[in-house]
């Protein structure tokens, strides 16, 4: 199989610290993959190994099938957008943009001018070509660094949190633009970020990293609805967890007795592989918890004391103390607001179709 970029068993150790642990990744031509994870999980390290800026301790990295081990960065035919942009401070915007072309031995002034103009039109930078980087706004600098990396038509383009220095509005707009641009030029890209929203918008697939490992690679929609692990469910969006043991299995339907003593019934794919007595973790999103159910006697009913009520606009989030130190987050549509304040008892039920079985 021909992948544009393939990582096999790649690891990076610093003395006895494992920064990246056995990462496997296959990326097709034109695909955009995000590496998503919290600070220190090894995203930048992975990216820099692909760039050739650091050597992996173990494993192989292939670009278009060619083994890149030992190949220096400048021979990998890649490019990178840095968090701080790293625009050459002594070169004009134009010189910055054509730098990669010049290093690829394109000397013809006309060709350089033309390619630069084309690129600057695309990223809407026309008119500032003779300025120095420090004479640009943050957003403009970001565009220059994008143009500089994109103009060389790299085999793989790497992004290391390129939007983290922009304000929120600009960030939202730019990430859509970056995606459109990458798709239009059919560029293969790896996009490192710790911002889940950014990852969800920009990528075809998201690889969630935790402690140096990739925990799950999947398309954005599934990451939210089908998180594979407890970490991911908690990292991408909010989630409540119920740990317990399986009491009964019937097809896709399982009955779990939680540690807090609640009986929870859930419909989960793959349930038939579970058996009585197995320890499992169920997750549920705050918006899939429904208010009501006082006085009824059926599974999935929980009650607790409201400790906080947070108004979020279209929804209201309740933090509920469900006993034994268990805090549960519930999101209710503002229009379905129940009359319930801090200190009151609230009754709610867990939607059996929206409970998710996660690892650990």
């Amino acid at each position, binding site marked *: 199989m021909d992948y544009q970029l393939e990582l096999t068993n790649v690891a990076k150790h610093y003395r006895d610290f494992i920064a990246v642990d056995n990462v496997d990744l296959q990326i097709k031509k034109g695909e955009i993959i995000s590496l998503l994870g919290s600070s220190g999980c090894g995203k930048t390290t992975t990216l820099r190994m692909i*760039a*050739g*800026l650091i050597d992996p301790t173990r494993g192989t990295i292939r670009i278009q099938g060619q083994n890149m081990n030992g190949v*220096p*960065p*400048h021979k*990998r*035919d*890649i*490019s*990178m957008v*840095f968090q*701080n942009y*790293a*625009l*050459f*401070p*002594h*070169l004009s915007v134009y010189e910055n943009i054509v*730098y*990669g072309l010049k*290093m*690829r031995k394109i000397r013809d002034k006309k060709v350089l001018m033309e390619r630069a103009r084309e690129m600057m039109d695309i990223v809407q930078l026309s008119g500032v070509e003779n300025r120095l980087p420090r004479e640009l706004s943050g957003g403009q600098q970001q565009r220059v660094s994008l143009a*500089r*990396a994109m103009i*060389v038509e790299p085999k793989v383009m*790497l992004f290391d949190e390129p939007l983290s220095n922009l304000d929120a509005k600009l960030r939202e707009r730019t990430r859509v633009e970056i995606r459109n641009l990458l798709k239009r030029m059919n560029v293969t890209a790896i996009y490192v970020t710790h911002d889940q929203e950014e990852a969800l918008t920009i990528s075809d697939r998201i690889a969630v990293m935790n402690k140096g490992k990739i925990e799950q690679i999947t398309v954005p929609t599934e990451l939210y609805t089908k998180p594979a692990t407890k970490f991911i469910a908690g990292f991408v969006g909010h989630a409540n967890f119920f740990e317990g043991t399986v009491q009964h299995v019937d097809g896709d339907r399982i009955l779990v007795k939680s540690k807090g003593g609640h009986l929870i019934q859930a419909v989960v794919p793959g349930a038939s592989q579970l058996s009585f007595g197995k320890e499992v973790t169920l997750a549920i999103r705050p918006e899939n918890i429904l208010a009501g159910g006082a006085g009824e006697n059926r599974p999935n009913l929980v009650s607790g004391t409201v400790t906080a009520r947070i108004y979020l606009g279209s929804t209201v989030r309740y933090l509920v103390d469900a006993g034994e130190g268990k805090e549960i987050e519930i999101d209710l549509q503002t229009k379905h607001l129940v009359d319930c304040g801090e200190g009151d008892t609230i009754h709610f039920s867990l939607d059996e179709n929206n409970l998710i079985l996660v690892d650990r």
Partner: protein
Amino acid sequence: MKLTSLAGKLARFLVYLFLLSPLLVVVITAFSDTNRVVFPPRGFTLRWFERAVHSAEFNSSLLLSVRIAVVSVVIACVLGTMVSLWFWKSNSRAKGIFESVFLSPIIIPTIISAVAFLQYFVLFGGLFTNYWKLCLTYAVIQMPYVIRTVTANLVGLDTSFEEASLVLGASPVRTLFHVTLPCIRQGIVGGAVFSFVVAFDECVIILFMKSAKTVTFPLRLYSYITESFTPLISAYSTLFIIVAAAVIYLVEKKIGLSKLY
């Protein structure tokens, strides 16, 4: 409020006066129409300047000093920049030791360096002419100045510039010339200016290592002054003050020397 700012201005003026008055005296005496340097000057003449410009002895010494200074500055800048880059990149434990070694010429009294160089060239002197001995010696003395200014520049330099260059397809050598060196240009030029001055007015080492062919400008001035103390000396000094001020002004304007500190 007003009073304190006035007092501040006055204090500043006095400090400048204190610093500059020796120079002023020199400049003023250069115009004295007497055969000895006297202050206050008597009469007014430009003949000392005319003499200064036409003296063959002084001019050849001047040329020699410039040649030695330029060659030694080039050597010191190339080596000093290389050493600084190594310090910048290396995490090696030996770095600390090398740092003190390379900076030692600033700390060691010049007279001791002079004796050391003299002895060194007694051993290996046959390999070099006296001119090259002086160039090499000065290069060693100047290197710490270059290392300090270049290192000051490198400390603030983000490594991602180099990485960006490499990733965009430039080899390490091209990265050095297209990115790293231009980024530390200020430090190199600053170091060059300082070390030029160091080489140009050096008086101790040259006393130990001079030969008939290598009478540098400071040495010429010195031996002239011991024989006759005419305003010619002041005229030369004045010319130098003007040239030095012009150079500092230009460098400051072009690259901003003050940024180095």
